[in-house]
């Protein structure tokens, strides 16, 4: 074959050699085998999925870090409550055997009041603004001092509310009972009136949610009055119904040492793994007021010490013991979750490493190979340039004289 001009071949060879050199340099400097999608489309696509997994694992790790202190705070609060209940049992036992000396029993009753205040304080523990025992109603303290009577801000003698006064559709009125430890939540539907609310309260009493004698009436001032019977330990009423306005406790009806739970029983959960969600709160009702009502038991012990017989004190003390046992049981799943979170932290750390290794395998360059390739590309490029410099100037004219 006639060879007329090597220029185009030389240019092509030089270009190829320089491209190879540039590619090798890029791999060494970036540490990546795949710098563009077209370098390896399959690896690039798989990398998208892997990076998404990494982002999820990172977030799970942050979630663990975020919720663990809150749960440890809750656990610490429960621990304090257990200590307080133990103190109350000791005091109650002492009171039951104080040989009928009233002064002694009164003194012990005062000490139990202090214990109750401590328990309420622990029950209203907040972590970074979140009340840990309020269920999902976690923006306000879950345990509130109870009164026997609440009245609406709306209504007056001149313009009284009536049973046919329309309620605001979608509004919510909640009555929390310190004696039963439960709450009635009424959500007004379109067309509902005060009479509907009254009927709902009656039904709640029948069901045992509210204490017997709890009613809603229109008082002499034209206001809606929601009250429980005087022998009960009181209620707390909240409403966002504009027709009723705010519900306020009548000051003279505050019940000493009585607290109602105004949170709810709903639980939040947070994802800390692809298939792992953990509950991040225990509702105050589950912990302290449902079943063995710890708050009511302390209130009952105080009452028994103030005016009851030794038998009454003994019975009240036994109720506190039962409450203590129930509280202790509630601590077990919380402790298990804390333990699970600690384990999960270690697992996620390992998972991060696994994903990083996989990603390096997908798109990373073997540095040793990349360095060798770079060296070879440099040698090749030098050889191509040297060959071009040698061969191109040569032709017959150079030798003809």
């Amino acid at each position, binding site marked *: 074959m006639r060879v007329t*001009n090597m220029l185009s071949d030389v240019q*092509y060879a030089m270009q190829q050699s320089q491209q190879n050199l540039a590619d090798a340099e890029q791999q060494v400097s970036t540490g990546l085998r795949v710098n563009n999608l077209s370098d390896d*489309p399959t690896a*690039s696509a798989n990398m*998208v999925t892997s990076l*998404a997994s990494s*982002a*999820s694992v990172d977030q799970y790790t942050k979630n663990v870090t975020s919720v663990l202190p809150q749960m440890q705070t809750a656990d610490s609060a429960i621990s304090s409550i257990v200590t307080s209940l133990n103190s109350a049992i000791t005091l109650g036992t002492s009171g039951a055997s104080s040989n009928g000396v009233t002064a002694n029993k009164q003194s012990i009753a005062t000490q139990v009041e202090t214990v109750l205040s401590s328990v309420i304080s622990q029950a209203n523990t907040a972590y970074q*603004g979140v009340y840990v025992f309020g269920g999902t109603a*976690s923006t306000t303290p879950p345990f509130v001092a109870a009164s026997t009577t609440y009245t609406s801000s709306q209504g007056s003698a001149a313009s009284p509310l009536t049973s046919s006064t329309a309620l605001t559709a979608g509004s919510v009125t909640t009555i929390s009972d310190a004696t039963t430890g439960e709450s009635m939540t009424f959500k007004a539907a379109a067309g509902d009136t005060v009479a509907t609310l009254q009927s709902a309260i009656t039904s709640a009493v029948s069901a045992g949610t509210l204490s017997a004698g709890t009613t809603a009436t229109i008082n002499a001032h034209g206001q809606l009055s929601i009250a429980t019977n005087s022998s009960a330990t009181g209620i707390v009423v909240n409403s966002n119904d504009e027709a009723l306005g705010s519900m306020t406790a009548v000051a003279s009806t505050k019940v000493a040492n009585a607290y109602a739970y105004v949170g709810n029983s709903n639980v939040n959960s947070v994802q800390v793994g692809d298939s792992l969600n953990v509950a991040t709160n225990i509702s105050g009702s589950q912990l302290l007021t449902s079943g063995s009502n710890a708050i009511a038991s302390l209130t009952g012990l105080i009452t028994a010490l103030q005016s009851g017989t030794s038998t009454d004190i003994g019975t009240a003390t036994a109720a506190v013991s039962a409450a203590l046992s129930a509280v202790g049981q509630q601590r077990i799943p919380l402790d298990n979750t804390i333990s699970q979170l600690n384990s999960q932290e270690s697992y996620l750390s390992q998972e991060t490493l696994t994903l990083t290794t996989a990603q390096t395998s997908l798109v990373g360059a073997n540095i040793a190979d990349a360095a060798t390739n770079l060296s070879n590309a440099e040698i090749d490029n030098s050889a191509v340039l040297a060959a071009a410099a040698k061969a191109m100037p040569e032709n017959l004219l150079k030798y003809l004289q």
Partner: protein
Amino acid sequence: MSLNTSLTTAVQSLNAASGALQITNNNIANANTAGYTRQVAVLQAAASSSDGNSSLGNGVVLEGYQSVRDELLQTQIQQETQAQSGANAQLSSLQAIEPTFTTSTTDIGTEMSAVFSSISSLSTNPASSTLQQAVLTAGQNLATAFNTASSTLTAQQSGLNTQVTQDVSEINQLTKQIAALNPQLAQLKATGQDGGTVQDQADQLVLKLSALTNVSVTQTDNGETLTTGGGTPLVVGSQSFALQTTTGTDGMQHVLDQSGDDITSSLTGGDLGGTIQTRDTAIPGLLTQLDTLANQFATAMNAAQAKGYDQNGVAGTNLYTVSSSVSGSASTIKMAITDPALIASSSDGTSGSNGNLANLSAMQTTKLASGKTPGDAYASLVYQVGSLTSSANAESTATTASLLQLNDQLSSVSGVSINEEAANLITFQQSYEAAARVVSTIQALFSVTMSMGTAAAE
């Protein structure tokens, strides 16, 4: 045989050598001229004459010159040029699109992960306004990533659209020039002459045209007839047929022949073919995938949002605003809410509930209407971009290597070898010198003959 006959023969030799030297000189002068086909002198022995019983040769005659061509190689080079230009047109656009889908801090995949991370973070404290705002910010960043990707694709498409007009304009100029050369070629052929530099010029113009679009070349008595791959005439004899462009109902430039028929889809080679293929097939395919993902993602998130309650206890409203039709979804998607309190975290109406965030988070692993999760759908899009670019790159590389080989082969046949021409210089120089020596010898003989007559008279 007379001295005059010998002198004539010697003079013919001088002319032949002189002509051959001129051809060699021309070859050397055009050694680096693009498209130049080397010429060789056509030397023919002169007809012999009879002198009684013997037949004597009458020297050499320079019949003319001939270009050394290979029509098959030329055709192959034209076809390979079409393929290379087409691949390069596609590669150029796709390489401009690649970075938008390459993993970075702002690509769609990264922003989508950030959205789900922010939702998960919010679940640890659903009433936190800081964490709520983080969700809105992440959501808007994702919408922006979609907008950017869409605008990159449509900007490329717009650029290619302009390129179509430019290519058609260039095609029309080239076909005009080829048509102008055809009468010259026809005349040369009619008189039995070699096409020479006129043919070279025409071949170069056809090669430039091949870089623009797919053409077929037919040699006729009237010169070269050119048609597109679909059979649309571009040049017939001395007449060229201009192509036109017009805006179609799709907003794109369509190519029409002289009769006004749309031939856009038949233009498959060259820069114009590659441009059209990228503009009308590759990019629309990517846009559809992108729009589908944006539309289905936004719709799914809105549906999850509607299942919960915001911080005010009101049922969740749309998180994203997106067009009802799939087309244009990626360019128009944006956040529908700006108040962080409107994120529907709650499942029970309380501000502290995170129950509905599980529904929003679940969208990460829930299959959309397309049958893929959002992450998998995006990964498919990334693969498609990479695969298209990789294919175009491979085609470009392969055609470049193939063209190099073909051009080497053509150069081997038609190219000027300086070494060869240098040798020819020596050869024809020596021929000229020898012929001149003969002339000198004959001149001397004439002098002797003339002297013979003068000496006798004395």
